[in-house]
């Protein structure tokens, strides 16, 4: 049996480097260190959301899928990344006894470079306990305010003043869900159960006015909108259960439907969109990517994708269909050559190379197995 010994950092540090001179001439002990920052290069932020205990935001190198570390918010965490990629905001809940007892809702501001908490503070514990989604935690255009979705189940939006480090207002949004910040100003648009979209504005003093409601834009029973849309300039684009795109201009006082486009018309196989973040948009190529499945039926709108369709947003036509890998979420870079990332229902992250052209085709370049994870959301910093 070998001789073995115990070590404590405290004692060893106290003993100091002088001791190294006593050691065997050819042996230099290693030192335990802490990585100060993550390695350079673009990242994929992978939300492994927990419904009990800590959620995890695992950070992967966008090119090589190297694991760079993680951040650990609380239960049912939501996340949003600053435009420069340097700051990740999360909201999550903490229960005093993990599954029971008083609930504290916390806003964390994470420094991405060091994966450490820059600050944290409590926010309204009306915060929704819900699968993480792009529409449920957002930053206003100037990144001065955070918009967090509440549900008790009555719905409202908590406005967090990031400058003041405190909650500014709770804006009731009855019957509506999600918050899409306007291109400028202190304003957001939300999707409502009566088929309208509504825009809410607020002021720096926490006051807010009546919502500006659109005409009826969609039929909740016949062609419901998925919550998580994308922005293209002055318009928000939503996907419907039946595979229609709805283009909504939110630059005026009230949202206005400017057009729709059918993705599946004339396509055999009863295709329909499905998933959560089921649409991603790359601006440089003006191309959207949509998760699709065939043999659609009432209730299949969350099924994993069997194909990813590419859509030219100029002509609003499908320009490519490629095999998927059971994704229920997508994210795409804003680089000239888009790189597409998918979150699979097995908890893996998939990267696709995108070949543009008259026909767009995707090829899976790499898959990262996150094992026991439950990936609900991806964020990119390029």
């Amino acid at each position: 049996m070998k001789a073995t010994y115990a070590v404590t950092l405290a004692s060893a540090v106290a003993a100091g480097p002088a001791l190294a001179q006593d050691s065997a001439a050819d042996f230099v002990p290693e030192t335990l260190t802490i990585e100060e920052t993550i390695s350079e290069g673009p990242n994929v932020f992978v939300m492994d959301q927990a419904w009990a205990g800590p959620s995890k935001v695992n950070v992967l190198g966008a090119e090589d899928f190297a694991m760079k570390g993680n951040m650990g918010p609380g239960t049912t965490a939501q996340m949003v990344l600053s435009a420069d990629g340097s700051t990740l905001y999360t909201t999550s809940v903490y229960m005093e006894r993990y599954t029971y007892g008083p609930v504290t809702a916390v806003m964390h501001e994470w420094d991405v470079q060091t994966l450490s908490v820059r600050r944290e503070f409590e926010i309204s514990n009306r915060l929704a306990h819900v699968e993480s989604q792009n529409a449920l935690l957002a930053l206003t255009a100037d990144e001065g305010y955070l918009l967090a979705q509440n549900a008790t189940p009555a719905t409202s939006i908590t406005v967090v003043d990031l400058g003041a480090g405190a909650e500014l207002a709770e804006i009731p949004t009855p019957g509506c869900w999600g918050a899409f910040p306007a291109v400028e100003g202190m304003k957001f648009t939300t999707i409502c159960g009566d088929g309208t979209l509504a825009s809410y504005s607020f002021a720096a003093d926490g006051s807010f006015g009546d919502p500006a409601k659109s005409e009826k834009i969609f039929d909740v029973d016949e062609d419901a909108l998925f919550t998580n849309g994308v922005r293209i300039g002055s318009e928000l684009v939503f996907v419907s259960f039946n595979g229609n795109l709805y283009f909504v201009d939110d630059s005026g006082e009230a949202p206005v439907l400017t057009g729709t486009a059918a993705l599946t018309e004339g396509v055999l196989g009863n295709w329909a969109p499905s998933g959560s973040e089921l649409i991603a948009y790359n601006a440089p190529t003006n191309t959207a990517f949509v998760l699709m499945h065939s043999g659609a039926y009432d209730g299949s709108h969350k099924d994993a994708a069997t194909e990813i369709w590419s859509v030219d947003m100029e002509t609003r036509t499908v320009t490519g269909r490629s095999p998927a890998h059971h994704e229920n979420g997508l994210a795409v870079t804003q680089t000239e050559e888009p790189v597409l990332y998918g979150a699979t229902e097995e908890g893996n992250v998939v990267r696709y190379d995108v070949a543009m052209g008259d026909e767009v085709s995707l090829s899976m370049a790499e898959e990262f197995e996150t094992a026991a994870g439950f990936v609900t959301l991806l964020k990119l910093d390029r």
Partner: protein
Amino acid sequence: MPKFFDHLLGSLDKAVEKTARGSARNVGRRSFLSKAGMAMVGAAAATPILPFDRRASAAGAADADECSYWRHCALDGNLCSASGGSLTSCPPGSSASAVSWVGTCTNPEDGKDYLVSYNDCCGKPTVSSATFCYTSEGERPGYRMGLYNDINWCMANTDKGYHCTVSVVVGLAE
């Protein structure tokens, strides 16, 4: 009629309701309830063998523990029947969610559509071995909250930890 639940939801949260500035929700609680023939916890109802239970009863509880069982048509969660409870009961020591989402499921036995209240049971961790179901017939995003199954319906309880979900047949759809 679809707006009914908004009214219910709003009234759960007085602080919000007060400033909700009355978007049009004018279908009363009573008309909905009478149509649905609803009864809930605390209402004394004789239930032993119901038409929509016949098959499950005949076959034992077996297929009730599978996600394909008819009344689980919009259930996103762990089955309470595999967590120490039953189709309609929360496991011992948990609390029933004060609010719920609703599905409309067709009973293959009689061909009728039933309203199913999916209540979460709360205040405990999930049971490691419980069957997880993920069906979404008629499910809608949070803007139609009462149909939404991606959210923790323990949210209105004192103890909010998610434990499991029951499928309680509370009405005839029509």
